[in-house]
């Protein structure tokens, strides 16, 4: 039997021990305030981000910003562990698949009270603010506008004598030109990676047919047959040698360096427009940017102007004002914008876009132009995804590997994946 008093004494003794031993964390040296900042990304993103934090802390003596970055796949379990431990970082980079779940758990601080008082949103695009608003509360500040895009090695395509229409190519093109490309490289390099496990690409393909990934109520907006058709499409492309082998695809763990494009096994990757800049730092040949393939010539509605990522503040942050101030600097100051470029997407603030425009290098301009040119190809932004969206994104990748390695036929994989989606959604609700 442990009485309440005993428990309290135990707690007291425990905290005394923490204080006495200094184990509660090393002393905070000279800084009065410390902000922890986490994000996923590549070294290129880290260099730019740390450039901004160094600039900012240089101007704010007494403030330290401790940055940490991981790859996409490692980032989410890590963030979940920290959040579970009541120890979430002050500022965290958020993705549209997860922001709803984190916000509804009450782990993210609403930012409405800071608007006009430390946080300036006057020049930020309306749709970007809307994307970061969950249940009527402003939670995430968009760090950039991006859209799904295929990044390709322009030189490799030219060498093979292959041409694609960047704003109008189709899955049929992928198949025929992919076969021709494989022919010309002797099969050593494929035109494209295996995109069957890329959720964004799947969503795009669904949307082109008037469907979607999730309804506003958080239910699947597609059927088991759609999944089967999707896997069949990729099986045909695999057959035609238009895409890399399952072995090669499985090496890709979501980091740029592991992608078939960077490893020289494919001449393309299906990613988002903002990544063009980062890929260019890793691939020596000039890169081009194209839309995701169209299902039929001239089909529209698949793409949308997304927020590439957000900054959000932990509900448990000890220094939310300072965190807000930093985010404000990050998205609203020309100095920060100059350092960040369009690596996280085109700035959501019109003022920053204007400030940035003259100084952008060719590749960055290309990424900006791509967003502008989307025009009618783009459709409306989908509703905030349900809580299990992140888990389902991972599940699609696993399922696609099962089909790729021939462990399940597309006919079986379709219903199996659909059931898994339904079960996962039900469990998270």
């Amino acid at each position: 039997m442990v009485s309440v008093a005993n428990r309290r004494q135990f707690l007291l003794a425990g905290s005394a021990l923490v204080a006495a031993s200094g184990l509660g964390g090393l002393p905070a040296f000279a800084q009065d305030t410390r902000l922890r900042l986490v994000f996923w990304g590549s070294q290129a993103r880290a260099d730019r981000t740390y450039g901004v934090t160094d600039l900012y802390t240089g101007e704010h003596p007494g403030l330290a910003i401790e940055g940490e970055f991981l790859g996409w796949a490692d980032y989410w379990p890590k963030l979940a562990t920290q959040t579970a431990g009541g120890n979430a970082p002050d500022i965290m980079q958020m993705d549209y698949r997860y922001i709803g779940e984190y916000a509804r758990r009450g782990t993210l601080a609403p930012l409405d009270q800071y608007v006009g008082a430390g946080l300036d949103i006057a020049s930020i695009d309306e749709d970007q603010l809307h994307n970061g608003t969950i249940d009527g509360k402003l939670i995430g500040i968009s760090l950039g506008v991006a859209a799904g895009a295929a990044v390709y090695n322009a030189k490799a395509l030219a060498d093979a004598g292959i041409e694609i229409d960047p704003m109008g190519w189709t899955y049929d093109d992928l198949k025929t030109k992919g076969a021709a490309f494989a022919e010309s490289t002797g099969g050593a390099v494929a035109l494209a990676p295996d995109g069957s496990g890329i959720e964004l690409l799947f969503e795009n393909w669904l949307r082109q047919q008037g469907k979607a990934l999730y309804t506003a109520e958080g239910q699947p907006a597609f059927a088991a047959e759609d999944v089967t058709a999707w896997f069949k499409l990729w099986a045909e492309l695999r057959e035609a040698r238009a895409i890399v082998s399952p072995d090669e695809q499985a090496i890709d763990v979501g980091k740029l360096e592991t992608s078939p494009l960077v490893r020289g096994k494919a001449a393309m990757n299906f990613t988002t427009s903002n990544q063009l800049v980062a890929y260019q730092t890793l691939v020596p040949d000039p890169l081009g940017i194209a839309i995701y393939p169209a299902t039929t010539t001239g089909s529209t509605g698949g793409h949308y102007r997304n927020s590439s990522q957000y900054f959000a503040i932990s509900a448990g942050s000890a220094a939310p004002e300072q965190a807000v101030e930093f985010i404000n600097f990050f998205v609203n100051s020309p100095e920060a914008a100059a350092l960040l470029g369009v690596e996280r997407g085109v700035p959501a603030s019109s003022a920053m876009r204007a400030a940035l425009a003259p100084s952008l290098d060719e590749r960055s301009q290309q990424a900006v132009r791509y967003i502008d040119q989307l025009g009618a190809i783009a459709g409306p932004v989908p509703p905030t995804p349900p809580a299990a969206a992140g888990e389902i994104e991972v599940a699609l990748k696993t399922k696609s590997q099962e089909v790729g390695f021939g462990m399940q036929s597309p006919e079986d994989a379709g219903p199996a994946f659909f059931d898994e989606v339904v079960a996962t959604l039900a469990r998270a609700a």
Partner: protein
Amino acid sequence: MAVQTAIATPAGQAQRPSVWSRIWQNDAPGYLFLLPWFIGFFGLTIGPMITSFYLSFTNFDLLQAPQWVGANNYIRMFTADPKFSASMRVTLFFVVFSVPLKLAFALAVAMLLNRGIKGLPMYRALFYLPSLLGASVAIAILWRQIFAGDGLVNKLLAMFGIIGPSWISNPNYSLWTLIILSIWQFGSPMIIFLAGLRQIPQDMYEAASLDGASKWRQFVKITLPLLTPVVFFNAIIQTIEAFKSFTPAFIISGGTGNPINSTLFYTLYLYQEAFGFFRMGYASALAWVLLALVGLFTAFSFLTSKYWVHYDD
């Protein structure tokens, strides 16, 4: 508890010191020396075990109070969770292949070393080194590189004109890379085998070779039977360790258990559920199934041991 029973014992002899002072003199020092262990045992083992059993019947996300859901977690696990069955398959496969192979290796090398050869301490130390370093993150990182598509193994194979696959990202081989990693660390069972071999009286072999028994016959008829207690011990320890294995699978698969869950060790899945998805109740249920599994295995080993383990006395 100790106090109550002590009082209940007959204390008729009046000339002896009182019950209390006897307890103080006889029992108290023991319990005092065990005090830290007792706090740990009840606070960190027994208490948490009871709690975890309770939690396994709840939905619990750490933020809100646990919600009682009856046996739902267990039902889901056995009827509607493909990842559970996948992780169970992976773990059992790992245990079934890594433990016997590791022990076979350990025994073979121990036999080689037990011939009174020169340089025994050096060889023993060299073979033991991987065991000592093996659990480290650094080794897992190294392993990932060795078995990558452009890794060391394929470099060596290329010298013979063989183009190897990317072992770690191919679901047919990925688990084997972890099994090989486990076998590589055969050093500590090897040392235990060596100690066991030392205990076998040399004159038994001399008598056998006088009778004309071949080396192999001597091994089967003398060495193996006399060594069974050591084999038994090693098998139990290594199996429990194999069930608990976590770090290599975590590092090699980047925490995912991929490709296609082929390295989704049970412990890795449990970690994902608990700390990746806040499903502490379900993870507790997973833990209890693991305990049942390890318990069953241990009980089975002990029950069957009398048929194959030979003790001198």
